[in-house]
């Protein structure tokens, strides 16, 4: 603790303050550079997080149109969101096309003026996508601000080698048959614990998300966007199932996205995790090439559900909004969605893409040639639409999951954990 450190801190504080100030300046300066209608852009910037599978597609677009496309990627959503906020608030470094995930989409929808209305700029695609997914891309004032990219239909990723060592079946049909419902999943976890003295599932929070999204309907918010965390049946169901799992001791207690969790894929700390289809790329990345063929994909207990998925939006401050909208339209087309799925796993939302024979016949070599097209595609139509409120992601990550993890780690009793969740949900959910 020293002068130097103090200066650094002050500099950091000043920087933060300046960033905030930029926000003010940005608000007063709406005209900016304006839209250069008709002019052909030299370059369009696409901002995404995780793996969208656009690497090859943008090259193709460059060849077809002669417009250069720069693809910016951020690994994690929680690092991605501040970048978007900063660019919106300061007007500096705004991308032309921005991917918005379902958890943060609604927060950005509360200030719809930041996003361009796509309706006049693209053709009418309203009947070409999963209807609920299309509807969610609209802001409260009816303007279309996002074109659907993917959904995260649910499955279970499991390590067949570890299942074999624990005396469990390894074939994906037989594994799916182990857990027709959540009780079956818990029983399997208990068998795994007895055989290996390890937790089968990575963390209670991944299961909690799965249960909650299966239940569908209103989660932390009701239709009028009031926080109903303590009354919502979907949340309660997810909570109770999670508590049962912790009591049955079937988890490895590795917090999702922590270093323990990432290392756990390689080390075999756990043998299963819940896989929305976008998770496949992450499992593969964390497990590394040496574990190819050890992972497999089985059905999820308790029926279809959606976890994750995104939209492509065009910021109002972008310089080439019309061209950007065309690029977004092209990236979300049926053929692009199939190509992205093959490359990195995000599941199509375009109805034509879902019927595409190439998509349906696709098998994933890393996951023991699992027919991921069939596994994920088969349950897409059964997904129930979910209503996520403005600060869904904050409530989930800063209220729901910490409380569950505190119970999982034995730091809080159930009643105290629930109380903490309800209290935090109220503050985190306010907007």
């Amino acid at each position: 603790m020293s002068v130097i450190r103090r200066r650094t801190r002050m500099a950091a504080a000043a920087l933060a303050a300046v960033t905030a100030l930029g926000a003010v300046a940005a608000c007063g300066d709406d005209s900016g550079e304006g839209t250069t209608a008709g002019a052909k852009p030299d370059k369009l910037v696409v901002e995404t997080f995780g793996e969208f599978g656009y690497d090859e597609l943008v090259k193709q677009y460059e060849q077809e149109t002669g417009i250069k496309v720069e693809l910016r990627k951020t690994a994690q959503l929680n690092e991605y969101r501040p970048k978007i906020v900063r660019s919106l608030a300061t007007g500096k470094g705004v991308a032309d096309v921005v991917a918005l995930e379902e958890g943060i989409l609604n927060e950005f929808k509360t200030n719809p003026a930041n996003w361009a209305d796509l309706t006049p700029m693209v053709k009418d695609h309203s009947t070409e996508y999963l209807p609920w997914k299309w509807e969610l891309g609209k802001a409260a004032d009816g303007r279309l601000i996002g074109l659907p990219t993917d959904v995260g239909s649910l499955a279970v990723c499991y390590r067949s080698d570890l299942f074999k060592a624990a005396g469990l079946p390894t074939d994906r049909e037989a594994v799916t048959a182990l857990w027709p419902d959540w009780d079956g999943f818990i029983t399997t976890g208990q068998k795994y614990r007895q055989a290996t003295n390890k937790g089968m599932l990575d963390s209670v929070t991944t299961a909690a998300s799965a249960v909650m999204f299966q239940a569908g309907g209103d989660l932390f918010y009701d239709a009028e966007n009031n926080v109903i965390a303590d009354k919502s049946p979907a949340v309660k169901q997810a909570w109770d199932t999670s508590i049962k799992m912790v009591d049955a001791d079937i988890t490895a207690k590795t917090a999702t996205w922590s270093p323990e969790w990432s290392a756990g894929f390689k080390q075999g700390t756990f043998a299963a995790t819940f896989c929305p289809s976008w998770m496949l790329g992450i499992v593969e990345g964390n497990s590394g090439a040496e574990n190819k063929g050890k992972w497999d994909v089985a059905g999820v207990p308790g029926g279809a559900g959606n976890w994750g998925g995104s939209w492509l939006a065009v910021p109002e401050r972008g310089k080439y909004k019309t061209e950007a909208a065309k690029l977004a339209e092209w990236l979300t087309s049926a053929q692009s969605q199939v190509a992205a799925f093959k490359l990195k796993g995000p599941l199509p939302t375009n109805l034509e893409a879902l019927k595409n024979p190439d998509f349906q016949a696709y098998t994933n070599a890393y996951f023991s040639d699992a027919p991921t097209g069939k596994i994920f595609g088969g349950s897409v139509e059964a997904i129930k639409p979910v209503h996520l409120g403005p600060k869904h992601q904050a409530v989930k990550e800063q209220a729901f999951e910490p409380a569950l993890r505190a119970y999982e780690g034995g730091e809080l009793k159930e009643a105290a954990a629930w109380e903490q969740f309800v209290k935090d949900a109220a503050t985190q959910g306010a907007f």
Partner: protein
Amino acid sequence: MSLATPARPKHVAPPDPPRRRQSRTVRLARLDTKLSPYLYVAPFFILFGVFGLYPMIRTGWMSLHDWDLIGEHTFIGFDNYTALLGDEYFWNATVNTLGMFVVATVPQLILALFLANLLNRTRLRGRTFFRMAIFVPNITSVAAVGIVFAMLFQRDFGVVNWLLSGLGVDAIDWDAQRWSSWTAIALMVDWRWTGYNALILLAGMQAIPKDLYEAAAIDGAGQWRQFFRITLPMLTPTFVFVVILSTIGGLQLFTEPLVFGNGNMRGGTQREFQTLAMYMFEKGINSLNTAGYGAAIAFALFLMIAVVAVINFALVRRTVK
């Protein structure tokens, strides 16, 4: 400089009366003596104004508003501050910040004092080497220190738990309890700052006149007695200075707990190690619509540091007298 060029116009224009010319030079000289000093100190004040004062005033202004980072702002007076007083998490962060400060600083200063005393010995070989060596941790990047320590204190694959398991201790989930997370973070802070403080104390020790020790030695005072009766009392001003710096740094603790907690502003599932600076960031930056509240936290932190600084100042004045 050629003399011809400036001389030319003089012949063209009617010559200035010598008195006026002289008075112009005098005026310029006077202006120079009056203005130049301000110009010399201006760089600091301009930088301070732009990066210090303006953000501070702006933060104060923000704290009086319901401020959405990417939306609207409404003036609400002191509502943010009244809310702050009743905010359990604000007080939790305050306790954490002060607690970690004590846990980190007390052992750190004792150790620094010990090291300084050791390095002050005239008979020690390779003194310069050791003096430089203890400073090295301080020039390591905070983020690097945080990442390495977070790895050492991992639950499943961390070195610390591996060593403890050799002693028969069960794996500790370091970020799940207050005591364990505070210990880990305090260790990080101490690793970086003990050497730095030791050097300042060493400088203070070297300023103590040698004859005092000689006189004491003649009177038969041993090493320990000399240390407690001469070194410590004479070192008080330096010591207070070190305490002030540590306090200011400690109250602004941010990077270490943040990196230790895997980048989560919450600082543990139950905010076991969330500091005030982290809570400020959570409210002011992470949560878009509470930027005004975050600004209020920033100002509260500023007030706390100001209070501590005033107390320290009073202490220094007393000791220097």
